[in-house]
């Protein structure tokens, strides 16, 4: 139980997926101009991340390992993720149209989001079991949500700030992300791995 808690806190705050592990920075900069869209993107990432990590974990354990096809990991995983996102999109449209309206436009963006593939591969590298896999992917997704939601809040305020000409746009955004990363660095040492 303690180990699960440690995994959760570690992947949510200490090794935050965006600010400490540098995964998923393109959408982090791209879809963070408004808090609403940031929240939508965050939820979509949590949703897809848990499903994709779970499925790729099962594939690795029950298909790739017994057949000794580990070297196909990259190709198989990226395909599974791309297919999964498509399936999720279609089912969501049928079953939960309200949810689809909220998250739909973010789903295709997620296929090329390196967080999903990155977490699927990291999960295999860390040798987690089934429950740990679920906790790890869920809390990493929540970490992404926290990072992008807070960042969008700061960026909304930045709109009104007087920024030197060359730094307008993405440059100041990235520097802001750097300061946020500095703040998240304060979590280091919260728990000992």
């Amino acid at each position, binding site marked *: 139980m303690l180990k699960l808690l440690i995994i959760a806190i570690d992947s949510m705050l200490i090794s935050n997926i965006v600010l400490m592990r540098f*995964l998923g920075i*393109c959408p982090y900069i791209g879809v963070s101009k408004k808090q609403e869209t940031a929240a939508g993107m965050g939820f979509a990432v949590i949703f897809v991340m848990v499903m994709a990590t779970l499925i790729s974990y099962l594939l690795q354990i029950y298909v790739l390992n017994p057949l000794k096809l580990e070297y196909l990991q990259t190709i198989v995983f990226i395909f599974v993720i791309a297919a999964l996102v498509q399936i999720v999109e279609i089912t969501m449209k049928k079953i939960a149209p309200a949810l689809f309206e909220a998250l739909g436009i973010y789903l295709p963006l997620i296929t090329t989001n390196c967080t999903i593939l990155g977490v699927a591969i990291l999960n295999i590298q860390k040798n987690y079991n089934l429950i740990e896999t679920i906790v790890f992917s869920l809390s990493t997704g929540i970490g992404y949500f926290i990072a992008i939601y807070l960042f969008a809040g700061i960026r909304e305020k930045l709109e009104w700030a007087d920024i030197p*000409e060359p730094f307008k746009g993405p440059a100041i955004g990235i520097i802001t992300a750097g*300061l946020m990363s500095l703040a998240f660095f304060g979590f280091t040492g919260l728990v000992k791995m």
Partner: protein
Amino acid sequence: MNSLKKIFNGIWTNNPVLVVLLGFCPTLAVSTTVNNAVGMAFAATFVLISSNIVISSIRKFVPNKMRIPVFIIVIATFVTIVDLVVYGYFPKLHKSLGVFIPLIVVNCIVFGRAEAFASKNNVFDSFLDGLGMGIGFLLTISVLAAIREVIGNGTFWGVKLFGESYSPAIVAILPPGAFLTIGLMLGGMNFVNIKNKEREKMKQKLEKEKLKIQKEVK
């Protein structure tokens, strides 16, 4: 001349990282030392060039609707090749690059060039485009890594630059330093571009005035 222009396009005008803002993740993550950065850049450039060549040579047989899965397979194949080669010949580098080698698959630079350029142009142009983008990526990531390594660790390619009394500002090689450094680099690049534009405007103005004066004199 034209081919030189295409390569330069990737280095400055359309620099994949600093202008198009693609491929940030590997750029920030592996730029803690120059050594890692150059390794990553070569791996990515190899994938870029070879996937560009293959995709542009099969572009006429691939139906439009099927193109994205086909591109992904081509790219993933080359990434797997790179992954295994680096694992076999440079195990140390493989360890420090970690998850970021397989992640070249979803690197937006590679996919973006395949979609935007290689699927519409001939093989030679696509090769040049891949080369230019690769060099642009290499230069950006090396400059970033050099700044971070020198400030944060006091070394360059593992060689100590300063005496014993130098105490490095570790923050530069920690994650926040990556964001701050690339943010400042972006700002610097914008600054140069803005100054260039102003200078050109001034030149045009001067020429117009010159013409006016010449007319008046006549």
